[in-house]
């Protein structure tokens, strides 16, 4: 685990983020060595890995499209999105189908993660603002950090993660 993460919380960064109620239920999952969490309300469903049709001329982290009961939805590999090395998909690998709010309206996007852990109920007090990691780490996609059962979970603002193109360096958080 990175030593950065256990640092005491820095003063609140973005006032808009602080204003948003962050407490509530989070689905936690693993990508590489790290535990992440996204708000349960953002999750449509969790499905096992299925055949992904590759789409040409797309960024490398877009694995392609899948058939979600008659709807064609894009699938993004979060490892690649965060600039982490690609690994073989395993039995635990799954796709979290998230509902994203973007400028073009709501849309469904699948996120490939290494494995899903549990649903956590986090109180506002459990969540700390994202510390300032310096310029190399873009913290735009982060809601905050939560401590639960002695482990730190990184809470993602999944709307931001899925719509922003430059989030590669989030991976440096994990290593």
């Amino acid at each position, binding site marked *: 685990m990175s030593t950065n993460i256990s640092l005491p919380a820095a003063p609140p960064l973005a006032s808009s983020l602080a204003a948003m109620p962050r407490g509530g239920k989070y689905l936690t999952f693993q990508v590489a060595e790290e535990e992440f969490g996204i708000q349960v309300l953002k999750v449509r469903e969790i499905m096992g890995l299925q055949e992904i*049709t*590759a789409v*040409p001329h797309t960024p490398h982290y877009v694995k392609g499209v899948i058939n979600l009961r*008659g709807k*064609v939805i*894009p699938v993004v590999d979060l490892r690649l999105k965060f600039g982490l090395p690609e690994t073989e998909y395993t039995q635990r690998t799954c796709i979290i189908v998230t509902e994203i709010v973007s400028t073009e309206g709501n849309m469904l996007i699948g996120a490939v993660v290494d494995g899903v852990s549990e649903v956590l109920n986090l109180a506002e007090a459990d969540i700390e603002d994202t510390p300032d990691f310096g310029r190399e780490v873009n913290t735009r996609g982060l809601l905050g950090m939560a401590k639960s059962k002695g482990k730190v979970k990184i809470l993602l603002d999944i709307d931001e993660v899925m719509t922003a193109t430059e989030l590669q360096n989030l991976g440096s958080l994990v290593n």
Partner: protein
Amino acid sequence: MQLNQNLDRIAEQYLLEDFSGIRPLLAELSAHLSHDQLAPLAASLDQLLAEPAAPAEAAAPAEAATMGQASQQARAEFEGALEALRRALSQSAAPAPSTGATSSSPAASSVLSQDPELVGDFLLEAREHLGSVEQGLLIIEKDPSHKESLHSVFRSFHTIKGLAGFLEFDRIQDVAHEVETILDMARNGQIVMGPALVDLALSGADFIQRETNRIESELHGRTEFVAAPVELLAHLRAAAQDPGAAAQDPGAAAQDPSAAAQDPSTAVPANIPAEAHAEVLAVPSAEEAAKLPEAVAVDAPARRAQTQESYSIRVDTAKLDYLLDMVGEMVIAESMVRLDPEIAASGNARLQRNLTQLRRVTEEVQKVAMATRLVPVSALFQRVNRLVRDTSRKAGKLAEVEFFGEETQLDKTIIEELTDPIMHMVRNSIDHGIEQPEQRVAAGKARAGKIQLKAYRQADHILIEIVDDGRGLNRERIRNKATERGLVPEGAVLTDSEIFQLIFEPGFSTAEKVTDLSGRGVGMDVVKKQITKLRGKIDIQSTPGVGTTFYLKLPLTLAIIEGLVVGVGRERFIVPIFSVQEMFRPAPGQISTVQGKAEMVMVRNTLLPVVRLEDALSVVGSHSASEDGLMIVAEIEGKRFVLMVDEFIGKQEVVIKSLGGSLKNTPGVAGGAILGDGRVGLILDLEAIYRDREPKEENSTETRKQSFCFSEQDLVTV
């Protein structure tokens, strides 16, 4: 709610001039409302009751005028009071504290402060009403005494007014109110809806249409400007106050269409003596008797439309799309079960029988679900009706329009996309095709030109014909123009159809003068582009002096295409079949290489460029030798090329689905489709693939190769 209904009834009684009937309603209201609120209404009602009901009863014209004015004042007061009460009610009913904002600047802020869903419903309903208003007014124009249409148009305006009032769209409310007043007088037999009044009512409807468009764009965050209807309201009020003047001899206006259309204000001239009222009043009954058979004939379709309406419901398109998705999945699941090897091997006859039954049912469900998106073309034709009327007037020509096959059904999206091209072609037909009345008579034709719109189904396509009996296309002039512009080499031999196709070239116009209607050379190329976009084809037939016919061939729906499923390496792609001409495996030596790079293949004595799909999409293919591949000859906008893939897997009808989000605009990919095994296949955008082929290549070779392939093209056509 109850109170609002009461108010509606009061308004209705008021419009029916049954003032005494309002009193008991007011008494009913007083049980719910304070005295202060009702006082102004009651006071103006008393005043109204004191006035003689109909100003026409007065003996001298001068007296009638003053009396009319007084009662007008009382009416205005009554209306004002009623409106104030209604507003107070709707505000107290509205839960949001929006009162302050709405009253300060009504037109601009109200859209944003209102519930967007309510506004959306209003827009939908208002447009529906406007559609029937137009239809009704056109019937009234032909037969001013057509009671049923008068009633229905009145009701439509009344409903629009009520809804607009509730949502505080004051401009719409004001205009609708004035038009309603005129229509009310017409249906009570006080005036006759002459062409001038119909024009006025139509421009009222037009304004409301524009205003609804504005509201809609505001709803989506865009601002649009629509001028306040000051002049229109003035005309409407003038017509309402002086009905005798506006209801001048309908025959005169009909004979001189241009005059009436040019300036509606001239159609509302000075006073006509009171004696005229009596005459005007007598006209409808006589006319009614004379036109009885015709009136019945017009009634029939109107009644049919009404019954149709009562059996249809409005459904959110998102729901329909979801239904279609689910049905598609059901069909796939069904075929997976049916084709499961274990089930096939079981030899259980009963199971097989049940599966066959299941298949039949799913197929039927799929067909029905697909049909839900289809709507009759009559709505589109109806708009042409209006267009022909306005355009022929403007051009000083006479034209009639006839429809065939209005009930033919077509995908709603296609109908929407088709509106502009069809309107343009009809406008062209009137402006270029139909001759002036005198010329027509000289040529031995009827004074009025005839435009026919026909729609019918042919196998998997819908055909729409636009027929006019005008002067026909001028072959020589089109040809000369094309030679002049360098589109056709001098002395080339062209068939009629090839010459006619030239009018679809960009910037091509043979009109000697640019008119308000057409001749600017924008249009026919846009028409063609739009039709091609809809995966349709357009063809022309024309005989000099006899007329021109445009044939449009369109797919039934845009949602489904027939495609070839092809494989490249592990990936599968779908090639839309409408752009595929043929497929073949190349013989050894059939492929030649230009400058060691670009591959060409000889197909029926024509050299065509080869595009390898694996290169175009940067996927891993399995064949490196060209001879092992499969060649697909594709045609895109008149240019042909050969697409090389690894294998042909099958032919399938697929439902086109958007890739969604950021993938929507992926170059070379038009969309996705669910294949028979439940996987997603990508539908290819051949145009983009051809355009962007081998981007790695240097520009110079690119252009050289392109010019080479164009010269090939020229060889083919000449």
